[in-house]
């Protein structure tokens, strides 16, 4: 059951569900409303999530006084644990001596050599070495809690809740930025960072950072890691949001959510045929390309149900 819905309409929205519905309403219906996902989990999402989790542990440890070398060891241990599928005891704890390591597979079941377990560990170690003398400091609130991997549920207008996770709120030269880690195969030239200038996730993070921490957040610093088979390169670039830009993003987003909720109420989820070829090809193209009568069978055969619920904490 997806708790972010009431009366068949979504009320709790994160950046993923907003962008899904902006991409294509039929995609949103299959992916978010019905919860269909390709059977093989996206290696890119898994790798990116573990990378962020490892760094979360590292920044949390450093901000709470753990010595640097121990923080590195804790970070690597967490990543090694995340990528090993231990059997669980009745209390949900991993059982020593069970399980096997994760092997990265793309959605066609072919081994993905770039985003492998070993390369995840390499990327984490190289990242913390690259930014060892970092001039970005983790923001620590008045209660002494470091602003790392902060889950937010922010009520806004029309009974809508914005949800998400901020990797980190950091301070640089008295300016506040949310930081976000991205992993990619793409080169880290300026055009790579240009995609974030109008990215809704970055606008939402800036909006949420300002609202939650009551500090003048100027935007998001993107820490990008280019993951290749034999090396990882890093780059860092900010994407700024002015107050006027945030107001514009907020109005656009609320208008869009209102429209999606109306269509959901009507049970009408039109295809956006212009986006079928984006992002390396929509995973549901094999469904939409069939006669409507056989689509339910294709969904049952080729997809698994994994509910994406923005209200469930990672």
């Amino acid at each position, binding site marked *: 059951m997806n708790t972010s819905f009431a009366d068949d309409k979504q009320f709790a929205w994160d950046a993923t569900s907003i962008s899904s519905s902006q991409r294509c309403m039929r995609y949103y219906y299959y992916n978010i409303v019905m919860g269909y996902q390709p059977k093989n989990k996206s290696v890119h999402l898994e790798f990116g999530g573990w990378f962020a989790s490892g760094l979360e542990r590292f920044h949390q440890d450093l901000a709470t006084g753990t010595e640097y070398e121990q923080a*590195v060891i804790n970070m*690597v*241990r967490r990543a*090694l644990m995340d990528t090993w599928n231990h059997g669980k005891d009745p209390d949900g704890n991993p059982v020593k001596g069970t399980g096997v390591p994760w092997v990265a597979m793309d959605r066609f079941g072919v081994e993905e050599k770039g985003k492998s377990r070993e390369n995840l*560990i*390499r990327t984490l170690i*190289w990242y913390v*070495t690259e930014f060892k003398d970092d001039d970005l400091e983790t923001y620590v609130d008045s209660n002494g809690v470091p602003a790392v991997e902060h889950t937010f549920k922010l009520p806004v207008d029309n009974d809508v809740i914005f949800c998400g996770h901020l990797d980190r709120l950091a301070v640089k030269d008295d300016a506040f930025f949310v930081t976000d880690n991205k992993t990619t195969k793409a080169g880290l030239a300026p055009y790579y960072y240009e995609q974030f200038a109008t990215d809704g996730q970055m606008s939402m993070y800036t909006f949420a950072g300002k609202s939650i921490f009551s500090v003048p957040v100027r935007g998001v610093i993107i820490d990008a890691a280019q993951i290749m088979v034999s090396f990882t390169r890093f780059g860092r670039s900010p994407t700024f949001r002015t107050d006027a830009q945030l107001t514009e993003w907020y109005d656009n987003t609320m208008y869009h959510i209102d429209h999606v909720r109306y269509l959901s109420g009507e049970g009408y989820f039109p295809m956006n045929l212009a986006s079928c070829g984006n992002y390396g090809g929509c995973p549901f193209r094999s469904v939409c390309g069939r006669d409507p009568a056989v689509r339910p069978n294709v969904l049952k055969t080729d997809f698994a149900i994994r509910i994406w619920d923005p209200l469930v904490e990672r």
Partner: protein
Amino acid sequence: MSDIAELFARDPLKLTDDDISKVVEVYRERRVNFKEAEAKPKKAKAPATPKLKSDTAAIVDGLNLEDLFK
């Protein structure tokens, strides 16, 4: 199996902090090597002299200008 491969193949619940330090050390060394390799100036290859394929070369060698204008 190399030391590092053995550590990766081992249940992480059985790894000590010392084991993980070895992993960290290996990857730090690899990073240093990568950075050094990146910093080295790339060797430019001298442009190769174009060569005619052997059968073409034989035809050209056999050409006689007088034959061409007969």
